[in-house]
């Protein structure tokens, strides 16, 4: 029961922060709310007993991606006055489309509810032994380098990260270096 209350608090925090990200006029405040939302998602991971992923979320999302976003906002901030509208002229259509997407997803989840209540899916193993959860990180590490499991996506991901690194440097490189402007 305490876990249910904790879940509701954490997910309400996540969703409110997410709404601030989407709707706030001040882009810098939106970036701070983005960090809050990432923190809430990390809390959800902890509730799901995925401690490793929660730590990775803290390090990568809050530690790296948010800082990158804030840097980009500060480098492009001059034009983003807080007085102008944050939404373009298709915001009504966008709201309708995303509400429709939400309705379809919720319809599927609700349709599947009776199956979960009857214990046929969804709650197959709600109370697994703690050793299995603790061993999952070891399993994950082994699976990432196992030839029969994830070694190919793992290597492709590292090549992708290298390509993104080099690509980001090339794209953001100034055409004229600052000393040439004199």
């Amino acid at each position, binding site marked *: 029961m305490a*876990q249910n209350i904790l879940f509701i608090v954490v997910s309400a925090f*996540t*969703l409110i922060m*997410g709404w601030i*990200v*989407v709707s706030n006029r001040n*882009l810098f405040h939106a970036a701070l709310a*983005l960090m809050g*939302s990432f923190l809430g*998602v990390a809390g*959800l991971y902890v509730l*799901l007993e*995925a401690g490793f*992923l929660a730590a*990775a*979320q803290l390090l*990568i*999302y809050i530690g*790296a991606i948010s800082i*990158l*976003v804030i840097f*980009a*906002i500060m*480098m*492009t901030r001059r*034009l*983003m006055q807080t007085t102008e*509208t*944050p*939404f*373009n002229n*298709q*915001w009504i259509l966008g709201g309708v*489309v*995303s509400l429709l*997407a939400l309705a379809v*997803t*919720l319809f599927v*989840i609700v349709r599947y*509810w009776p199956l*979960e209540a009857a214990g046929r*899916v*969804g*709650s197959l*193993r*709600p*109370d697994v032994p703690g050793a*299995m959860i603790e061993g999952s990180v070891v399993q*994950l590490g082994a*699976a*990432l380098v196992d030839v029969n*499991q994830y070694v190919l996506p793992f290597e492709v*991901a590292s090549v*992708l*990260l290298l390509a*993104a690194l080099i*690509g*980001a440097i090339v*794209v*953001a490189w100034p055409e004229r270096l600052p000393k040439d402007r004199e």
Partner: protein
Amino acid sequence: MVPLSWYLIVAAILFAMGLYGVIARRNAVAILMSVELMLNAVNINLIAFWRYLTPDRPVGLAWSLFVLALAAAEAAVGLALVISVYRERDSVIADELDSLKY
């Protein structure tokens, strides 16, 4: 324990909010932030399904790690593009980047 559907509902709402942000925000950096929200919603789903359906195999964990790596790559390239466009056009408003249209 919390029912699985609660996690799915939270993830669905977060995904829909991110979708709205991608469609309706004007600033390119804000669009990238909304994309990150959508990726987070997907990750919640992956980990919830791992915990409830296959806790004995780290399928969901592995794929959510790949999503994490992809999000990092996407943020790096996307923000580099934003900075490059800002340098070129003096604007990061998506409506004003329309030179392919005319």
